[in-house]
């Protein structure tokens, strides 16, 4: 029968298609595994080398000529303070720019130009930011090789990321919400402050944290601006015993950060220092993972509350 033959033919084709399907399944799985296995091996390797070194002493000691006495105190304090400056610089600027571009800016060649530039800026190699900062903050504005310079540099670096995250989460708000607000007689600023900002806050926060977790590992621009690799003291305290009980002197103090401390240890010949570097690497990795995890959590929380 003709019909029988047809069915045979169709079955053959289905079998062939299924074979291809399986083939891709295997390729896809292998590709996924390679990335995962590599990262996993790296983490395990770091843990084996560095974990025994992690302890109270490691977090509370300055770098030292003796590897067993050395620690990351000045590095983690430096990283924390630099991150505070980075966030303080990039977040308000980024959010304001993102809101302007989405809600206020008229669509014309100028905003198009800004938009293209903004997207390109996110891809500029970080050392270029270092060079810019060296010229602008260190030499021109005379901030020196300070926490302020470091924070502003990294702030510039993540500014495009914050702007893009802000714009994306603003764009996710349906236009019907804006119209509802305007129809009640709200001005643009009232609409932004009462609706656009609160509803896009989760996305903005996520973008900010992901930006910071990139900034925390940046080494090149920080080296370019001349951060020191051996710092055996802490910046001046932001809290003082005399009126007005706080001080911004720490902003102009020299500093080091975690990746620079690691770089310094790695470039020494003694293996004991390499172990210190691995231990610092674990701390850095944990910090990044924690920040990313927090970003995922925030996204989840805000998505659950607001669904369009």
């Amino acid at each position, binding site marked *: 029968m003709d019909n029988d033959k047809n069915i045979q033919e169709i079955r053959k084709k289905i079998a062939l298609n299924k074979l291809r399907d399986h083939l891709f399944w295997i390729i896809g799985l292998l590709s996924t595994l390679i990335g995962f296995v590599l990262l996993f091996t790296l983490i395990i390797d770091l843990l084996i080398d560095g974990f025994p070194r992690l302890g109270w002493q490691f977090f509370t000691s300055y770098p030292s000529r003796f590897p067993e006495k050395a620690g990351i105190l000045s590095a983690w304090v430096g990283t924390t303070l630099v991150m505070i400056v980075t966030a303080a610089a990039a977040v308000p600027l980024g959010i304001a720019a993102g809101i302007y571009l989405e809600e206020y800016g008229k669509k014309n060649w100028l905003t198009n130009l800004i938009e293209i530039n903004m997207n390109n800026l996110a891809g500029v190699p970080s050392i270029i930011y270092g060079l810019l900062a060296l010229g602008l903050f260190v030499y021109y504005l005379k901030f020196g090789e300070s926490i302020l310079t470091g924070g502003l540099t990294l702030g510039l670096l993540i500014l495009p990321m914050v702007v893009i995250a802000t714009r994306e989460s603003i764009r996710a708000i349906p236009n019907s*919400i804006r119209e509802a607000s305007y129809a*009640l007689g709200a001005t643009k600023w009232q609409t932004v402050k009462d609706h656009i900002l609160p509803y896009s806050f989760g996305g903005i926060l996520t973008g900010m944290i992901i930006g910071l977790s990139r900034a925390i590992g940046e080494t090149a621009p920080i080296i370019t601006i001349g951060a020191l690799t051996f710092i055996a003291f802490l910046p001046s305290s932001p809290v003082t015993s005399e009126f007005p009980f706080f001080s911004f002197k720490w902003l102009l103090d020299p500093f080091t950060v975690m990746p620079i401390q690691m770089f310094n240890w790695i470039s020494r010949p003694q293996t004991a220092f390499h172990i210190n570097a691995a231990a610092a690497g674990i701390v850095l990795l944990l910090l990044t993972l924690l920040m990313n995890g927090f970003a995922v959590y925030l996204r989840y929380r805000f998505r659950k509350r607001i669904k369009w």
Partner: protein
Amino acid sequence: MSVTHSYPLKAEVKNLNFYYNLVQALKNVHLPIAEKMITALIGPSGCGKTTYLRCFNRMHDLYPGNRYEGEIILYPDGLNINSPKIDPIEVRMRISMVFQKPNPFPKTVFENVAYGLRVRGENRKNFLEEKVEKALIQSALWGEVKDRIYDLAFNLSGGQQQRLCIARALATDPEILLFDEPTSALDPTATSKIEELIMQLKKEVTILIVTHNMQQAARVSDFTAFMYLGEIIEFDKTDKVFTHPSVRLTEEYITGRFG
């Protein structure tokens, strides 16, 4: 158009033309809006009825490239709300709108209804509570939500959300209430509740409603305007339009021969 001569007018549209860039969407439209009556706009998709409605609260000003010509006179003060000299925000404070799809804010029921008053700088808690309760009673939602005032509005059903949007529009005591196909996203039960509500509301406010549903126009409205390709083809008392239309096109549309 003297069908409204025995009724006091709340607004009057004169020679209204509207352009989306170069495309003319409304052509020389005239329409009297009788006070505390319901005027329905019917017509096939793309005939310009929503465009027309959105002229009344200057929603078109939010987007670039839109242009008005002509007048919408608001009575009793005789203000031309389409004049470029009039701030659209002032117009929107006097004329409220309910949209096609329920669009509550992702806030509590209370904050949704109170938002129009907050925009006007009202922050006294007692006053807001009073107004919110009154608006929710007016929109026939109070009984269903009075224990859930501080719940998120998104937890309400679709029909309840739309009545919440009506309450939100009513809380500011508007002079005219605009409805843009308010039931097109709702099931029949929710639809009939909203229709009942609209008929109730005309005691207090002048209503202009765009609808796709001719039965709805016939059920709720006092006057009906049939629009086609940006023009008003026929305007008359609703029962006249639906029983003895004077224009052939109207008859063809309401009997379902096109549209």
